[in-house]
């Protein structure tokens, strides 16, 4: 049996199209429709109701939630970018052996070898009031009273985000760096460029697509997370995703749907802006 090239490409695209339609588009449409409905006790009442959106745009809570999320996002992004870039730079340009480079990259994934819930609980004996860090600091005489903001605070949430997400930034940057033709750097060095000049004038412009991809990972991971923030703040820090989770747990689907729609629009907006500034396609095509 033979197909025309046109039919063949349609056939090849069909499985993915079906997945996209039934697992992405249809659920999103349902969420969108539900966001305009009223609700009772664990039921969606199918009448047009603007209250879910009015509540979002009118309430102080929304601003507080997004301010918290944005603050954490900026910190996490900055730190993971610095860490990711530095580690990638070291791995690509300073580790000469491919073997050791692979070993080091694998070591970066060690935090992911255990289950998420166990990882969350194991922060307690480290950061808790009676934890190792406090004991060490008190033992060295640096502090007299244990510091309580190490755990169940915005600090601990940000710390865990950084711990979990640095790899998401490091990976794409290392990938971009790996593709840099070493002769360019050699040429710059021959012309008398210092290491710093090479980084700012050659490497950073060339790894911009990697940074962009990493940033998208960080953005979506932080905005979409309700689990880490809940566990690490002891439910004392609220974010847009956390608010959605709370409403789902109370079976109040329409307001949760409305909040999801707003968040989706915002995240897509930011991602689109990043894609506009940096040409990722060029990077992927190479």
């Amino acid at each position, binding site marked *: 049996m033979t197909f025309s090239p046109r039919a063949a490409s349609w056939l090849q695209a069909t499985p993915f199209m079906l997945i996209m339609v039934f697992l992405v588009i249809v659920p999103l449409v349902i969420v969108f429709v539900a966001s305009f409905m009223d609700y009772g006790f664990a039921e969606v009442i199918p009448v047009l109701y603007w209250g879910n959106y009015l509540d979002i745009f009118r309430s102080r809570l929304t601003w507080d939630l997004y301010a918290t999320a944005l603050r954490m996002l900026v910190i996490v992004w900055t730190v993971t970018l610095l860490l990711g870039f530095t580690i990638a730079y070291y791995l690509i340009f300073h580790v000469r052996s491919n073997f050791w480079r692979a070993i080091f990259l694998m070591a970066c994934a060690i935090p992911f070898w255990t289950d998420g819930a166990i990882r969350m609980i194991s922060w307690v004996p480290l950061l808790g009031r*009676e934890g190792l860090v406090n004991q060490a600091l008190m033992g060295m005489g640096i502090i007299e009273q244990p510091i309580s903001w190490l755990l169940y605070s915005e600090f601990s949430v940000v710390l865990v985000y950084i711990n979990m997400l640095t790899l998401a930034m490091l990976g794409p940057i290392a990938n971009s760096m790996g593709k840099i033709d070493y002769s360019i750097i050699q040429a710059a060095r021959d012309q008398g460029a210092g290491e710093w000049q090479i980084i700012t004038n050659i490497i950073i412009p060339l790894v911009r697509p990697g940074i962009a991809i990493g940033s998208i990972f960080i953005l979506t991971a932080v905005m979409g997370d309700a689990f880490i923030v809940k566990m690490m703040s002891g439910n004392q*820090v609220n974010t847009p995703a956390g608010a959605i989770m709370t409403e*789902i747990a*109370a079976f109040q689907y329409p307001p949760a749907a409305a909040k999801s729609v707003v968040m989706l629009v915002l995240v897509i907006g930011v991602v689109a802006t990043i894609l506009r500034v940096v040409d990722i396609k060029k990077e992927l095509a190479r």
Partner: protein
Amino acid sequence: MSKIKDKKSSSGISRRDLLKGAAAAVGTAAGSGAITGFPTIWAQNIQNVTLNHVGSVYTTNPLVAEEANKQLGFTINMQTLDTTSQMNRLLAQPETIDIADMGNPSLKYFVGKDTLMPIPINEYKWWDKTLPLWVDGTYANGEQASRQGFAPILSAYYADETGLEWSETPTDWLVSIPLVTNADTFGIRPDLINRPIESWAELFNPEFSGRVALQDGVNVGVPDAAMALEAMGDVQYVNKGNMTIEEIDKTIDKLIEYKRAGQFRSFWTTFDQSVQLIASGEVVLQSMFSPAVTEVRTRGIPCIFQGLKEGYRGWAISAMPLRHVTQDPLKRDCVMEYLNWMNSGWYGAYISRTGYYTSVPDNAKPLMTENEWGYWYEGKASTDDIIDPYGKVMEKAGVVRDGGGIWDRMGNIAIWNTLMDEDRYLVRRWQDFIAA
């Protein structure tokens, strides 16, 4: 086909048929539970019945499933789900579940939805032996039990067989089969506090600033907080288990004040988190469930479940068949048989040994030792080791249960776990509290 039939009838009963008949008879006997002493005679085909019971950790437990399958002639398939997943499944795919069990407040989600099967009172064997909290909303001494929050009596009866509305006065239709109840307060670390704790007000005592925790959520955490706020004199309630909008505002505003002042260390969601918080000394006083206290104690860390002068926060769990089982009369019979079995004694004794009360203590009593019964139900000092269902020693001889006997605890309920009428507004304001 007819040829074969002819041949069979001509030769009379074959040896093969005889064997089959004998096997069926044995099967029926085993299936009826006659071997284990359960007295109903059943058709052979119940062997093919499988019931899906989806519920909480208190009921859907491998130990219980094993015993149920041993004693009943049909198969019980148990699955434990968290409240959110269970509820979503009950609402979206009720046909995948035959029996559900849940905390009483969750029953409110089903009012008027026609998802659950109303239970004819004459098909449930133990109603007259059930704790009066469910039967007529009273304590053992006949006094009316608290109706603040979701008292069991509020969702005990349906008004009629349609099951669309509840009735606070007894009728012939039960909403659910009561399983378990208990009275909670908070767990404390006596070694880190070093003085008696007697009032809910201690939750907001500045002395424990940054060292208290609450359960996270509007069904348990808010009632606990309301108990404390009322004890402090911060907020007055008409019914703190079902607050008005104004009362919700006052409550949340006060809670935000305490949160900003750094009173709370954490809010826990899971059993393990609550154990971790108090065992590690991160908190010295928190809302807690009884087995979590036991878990801390079995680690050799002192922890007391403290009775308080304002009373306890009560809760109850009950089981209900889904409406669709009525379409299959055989399955429906098996469901009722199973629900009757649940309270016939074995499960009651099992759950009593974990620190909860069964809804029909009279049936559990014969299966418990005098020592166990005295310790768990009568507030007497243990005369020997108290062993949990898994064979672990929970307490040595000479220990009295915190709070005393069943009616010292269950007879002193100040508020029940709840789902308020203004839930929509409360969840909204609870968000403000978490964000503050």
